[in-house]
């Protein structure tokens, strides 16, 4: 019960962090303009090769990617606690440190999903990609599932980057680019080079995106296994982050470096 309360407070802190960067106006005018332009940027590659089917593929993939970006970048938010000297307080408190740290990702997941959902009508209209109204609940559900799964990756990434906070932007961007390249965002997994496609199999979003595409394209794909794979992938990343958090806290306490590297 207390863990739930810690998660709620951590989510609120994450929200407050965001509002210190963006006002509602700059978020809509600045951030949303940027992300819509990002999807257009990649989708223009379809126009370059003059293939409407490729354009449609790029539109859907990059739209879903919008939900992953803020989620994975949430790893950076986790590192702020060490940089701002808050970590010793979190560790000293009787509540779960992991819940306090990983809970910061909640607002990142919400931001990611809201970003993609707000951008979707504009992008889909712009590129004339129709969506059946009846499919919307399932598509939103799969989007949320993929973002939650990506939060597992962000949790491990955040735990690792807590050890070297100066690499926070590079590390989180590397993860975002890896997903963009390996997870079937821009080309189908079967057209992705083997090494990259293999990495994609263990990254979040790959299976969720296949499920989203199968609904959008009305192909007879069994969604159950895809949903299970997506859940297991995100869960595995999250479980892997737990010993990392424990190590960081143990090491920080033992060496007196919780508030500095």
């Amino acid at each position: 019960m207390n863990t739930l309360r810690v998660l709620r407070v951590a989510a609120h802190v994450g929200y407050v962090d965001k509002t210190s960067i963006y006002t509602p106006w700059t978020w809509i005018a600045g951030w949303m303009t940027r992300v819509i332009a990002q999807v257009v940027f990649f989708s223009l590659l379809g126009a370059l090769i003059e293939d409407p089917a490729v354009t449609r593929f790029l539109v859907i993939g990059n739209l879903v990617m919008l939900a992953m970006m803020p989620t994975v970048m949430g790893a950076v938010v986790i590192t702020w606690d060490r940089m701002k000297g808050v970590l010793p307080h979190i560790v000293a408190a009787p509540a779960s440190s992991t819940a306090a740290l990983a809970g910061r990702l909640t607002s990142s997941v919400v931001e990611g999903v809201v970003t993609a959902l707000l951008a979707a009508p504009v992008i889909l209209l712009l590129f004339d990609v129709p969506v059946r109204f009846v499919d919307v609940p399932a598509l939103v559900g799969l989007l949320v599932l993929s973002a939650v799964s990506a939060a597992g990756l962000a949790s491990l990434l955040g735990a690792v980057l807590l050890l070297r906070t100066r690499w926070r932007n590079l590390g989180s961007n590397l993860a975002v680019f890896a997903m963009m390249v390996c997870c079937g965002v821009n080309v189908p997994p079967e057209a992705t080079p083997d090494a990259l496609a293999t990495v994609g199999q263990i990254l979040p979003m790959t299976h969720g995106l296949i499920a989203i595409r199968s609904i959008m394209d009305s192909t007879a794909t069994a969604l159950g296994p895809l949903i299970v794979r997506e859940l297991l992938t995100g869960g595995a990343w999250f479980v892997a982050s737990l010993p990392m958090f424990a190590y960081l806290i143990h090491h920080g306490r033992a060496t007196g470096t919780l508030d500095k590297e």
Partner: protein
Amino acid sequence: MALLLGVMRHEAGLMRREEFLPLVLLYPLAIAIVMQMVIGVGQRPDLGSFAVVGPWLVGVWQLANLVAGETLNKERHAATLEPLVAAPASTIIVLTAKVGTVSLVSLLGLLEAVAVAAAFGRPVTVHHPLVLLWGGVLTLVAATATSLVLVALYVASRSARTYQNSISYPVLVLGGAIVPVSVLPEWVQPLSRLIFLSWANDLVRASFSPGPAGGVVLASLALIALTLAGGGLGGWLVHRALRRARVDGSLALA
């Protein structure tokens, strides 16, 4: 000249510790991989030059945008902005040399894109090396001039990071960084031609053309005009912003 070389040497020394430089090198790498994969799916190996020049220009722009926001901030954090402005040397020349030195790093993006093309089995051949050299120089000079305009805009803003982030992709789309301007809607095209990336794309891609390198003169003239306009405007805006900050005593305040 001694001032320029001195600033460039100093900035090159500082760059080794810059954390954003590896980040900027990620962009051309990732975009080059994506473009090669898409070209492969579309079976359009004839677009190989786009997949080399486009990712490079993405890196050039991202670096120009990033360095514009960081340059004055760095001076403020190190408490060197006031001595810099008080020194008898021209502040604008010092800032231009600093920004220009960092922009040289974006050349690595071109090497990355060429390496990715080779890794995907679609190596590119430079048929007009002088055009490539000329285009590369003009592009970097234009990027430096554009950075100067951005420095002025960011110094006047309280949260440069927010604006840096916001304009990154819109400019890449409008500037035709990865696709020819003709692919963009007609009403956007005049606007695209005001952004140096569109001309840089035409000029540098011409160096990979197996036939005669077309459009070099027009693209060169346009890049020179945009550089002069951007440099002039940026220099004037930075001068005004710094003068105002000196008058109201806010030079060292973010």
